[in-house]
């Protein structure tokens, strides 16, 4: 209030020219290719257009409300949440488990690490193709294993990707598999950042392996795990390729997530650019809200070293 403005502004504003120059490339690119399309989508989401995206008629912000309340959107949201609830916890648990398993000194651990990271090399298309080859009920790999079919007859009749109950978990399995490499690498990096003297001290104090894991490792992994959860959730909500390639949103809509509702070939709004934008913006808002909740709710509990 009484400090001389010049000095204070000199401190805060001194770096501004440099900052502008350094930020300009990223900012310009992200503005043009992410923020601008988002803005356009928000605007387009108020309109209904013809099949070519022309002759748009404005219906107003009510369109967003109408979509939120519509049957197809609500069902898609439910499916999306189900999908996320399967892929995120399991993916996280597997990542942590594998990273912990592979963190010890074992001869040849490098090979195992390479194997566990390998799924990061597969694109969604490639992973989906591999899984389709596995799951096809007539000639797929799993359908040729008789002992497996006796255990789980659904593999053959009607097939894991055909049965309404197993289609979404099967798609989720392929997604978890594809993200495994990414999760494994991140958690391993997090594990290795934990100072070894902490473990040593605890061991000297008599703490066993499991105790050390829960009391030391897991809390210190906190920030990493939070990052992984946020990324996995974002990926789960934005997943599209798997549904497109494995099930085409079926059977009977049981794998129609919100992204598939937006862009999928079999979606009723396939040729309506206006409605597609509405749904896309709603997805963004959902993701924004979810991320904010995750960061606030969980972030406070995370222990920062």
């Amino acid at each position, binding site marked *: 209030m009484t400090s001389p403005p010049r000095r204070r502004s000199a401190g805060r504003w001194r770096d501004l020219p440099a900052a502008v120059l*350094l930020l300009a490339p990223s900012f310009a690119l992200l503005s043009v290719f992410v923020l601008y399309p988002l803005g356009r989508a928000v605007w387009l989401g108020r309109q209904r257009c013809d099949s070519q995206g022309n002759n748009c008629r404005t219906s107003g912000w009510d369109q967003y409300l109408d979509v939120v309340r519509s049957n197809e959107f609500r069902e898609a949201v439910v499916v999306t949440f189900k999908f996320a609830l399967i892929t995120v916890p399991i993916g996280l648990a597997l990542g942590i488990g594998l990273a912990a398993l592979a963190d010890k000194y074992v001869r040849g651990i490098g090979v195992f690490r390479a194997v566990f990271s390998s799924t990061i090399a597969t694109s969604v298309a*490639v992973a989906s193709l*591999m899984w389709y080859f596995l799951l096809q009920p007539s000639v797929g790999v799993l359908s040729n294993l008789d002992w497996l079919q006796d255990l789980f007859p659904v593999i053959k009749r009607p097939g894991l990707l055909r049965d309404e109950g197993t289609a979404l978990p099967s798609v989720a399995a392929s997604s978890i598999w594809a993200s495994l490499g990414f999760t494994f690498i991140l958690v391993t990096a*997090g594990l290795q950042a934990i100072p070894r003297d902490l473990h040593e001290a605890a061991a000297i104090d008599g703490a066993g392996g499991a105790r050390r894991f829960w009391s030391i490792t897991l809390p210190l992994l906190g920030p990493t795990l939070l990052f992984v959860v946020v990324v996995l959730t974002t990926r789960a909500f934005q997943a599209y390729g798997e549904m497109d390639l494995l099930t085409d949103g079926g059977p009977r809509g049981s794998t129609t997530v919100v992204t598939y509702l937006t862009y999928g070939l079999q979606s009723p709004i396939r040729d309506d650019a206006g409605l597609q934008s509405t749904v896309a913006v709603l997805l963004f808002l959902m993701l924004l809200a979810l991320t904010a909740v995750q960061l606030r709710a969980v972030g406070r509990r995370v222990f920062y070293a």
Partner: protein
Amino acid sequence: MPDATPARAPWERSTRVGQIGRYALLALIAFIVLFPIYTTVVAALKPGNRVLVNPLVPDSFTLDTFREAWSEARLGRYLGNSFIVATAVTIGQVVTSLLAAYAFAMLRFPGRNVLFVAFLATMLVPLEATLVINRQTVDALGWLNSYQGLVVPFLASALGVFLLRQALLALPKDLRDAALIDGVGHLGFIRHVAMPLLRPTLGALALFTFLGTWNAYLWPNLITDNEDWNTVQIGLRQLKAQTLDAPNLVMAGTIIAAIPIAVVLLIFQRQLIRGLTAGAVKG
């Protein structure tokens, strides 16, 4: 910085049974993880008419499918396109992210936090929402069927900015202050101090970016209608149309598309883990 493979410490020595048990578990999980890849490789190595027989056992062997996938599907040319695009995007993202991360981590200016949050929010925008409008933008610039069109929209990355900012903040404070006092200037600091010290993180970012761009399908497909500009993922899509009469061809193409990535990954795997260590922990 911790080594990637720690030496055995006194409290970590386990019993022989424990060792064997661990190996067994690791091997089992590794087998499960590799299973889809394994069946794909087996299928790719079989001649066309033996694909459905014994999918688990490579009882026949031929490299003809690879040859066919390479030449008939023009995968060679498409691999070249993918490589150029992925390399350009990787370099671009690393450079722009490093500059921006430096600004966020080291500089003080009004609106810094708000701007950072805005950057992060761009990570949440679904890709498909931006596709059509970006296509219009690129079309207006005359960049359809061109390297610029394939590369420029992806030259910036909020994820990169995030990771590099973390890494910069993790540097010892005295180092930062000392360098600034020395008067090397911002760019000097970046070139001579940040880049060498951040090499692992930069390497990790480069790897993630290369992978992501290599695997991209939607965007390259949307802005190219001329086959000469196809990337390898589009080539793979062409092969997919032959799933019925030549599934082994599709598998072979899949492997060809994935091999460069797998190689790069194997080589840089240690770097990747070390790089992520630097930034992933500190808040």
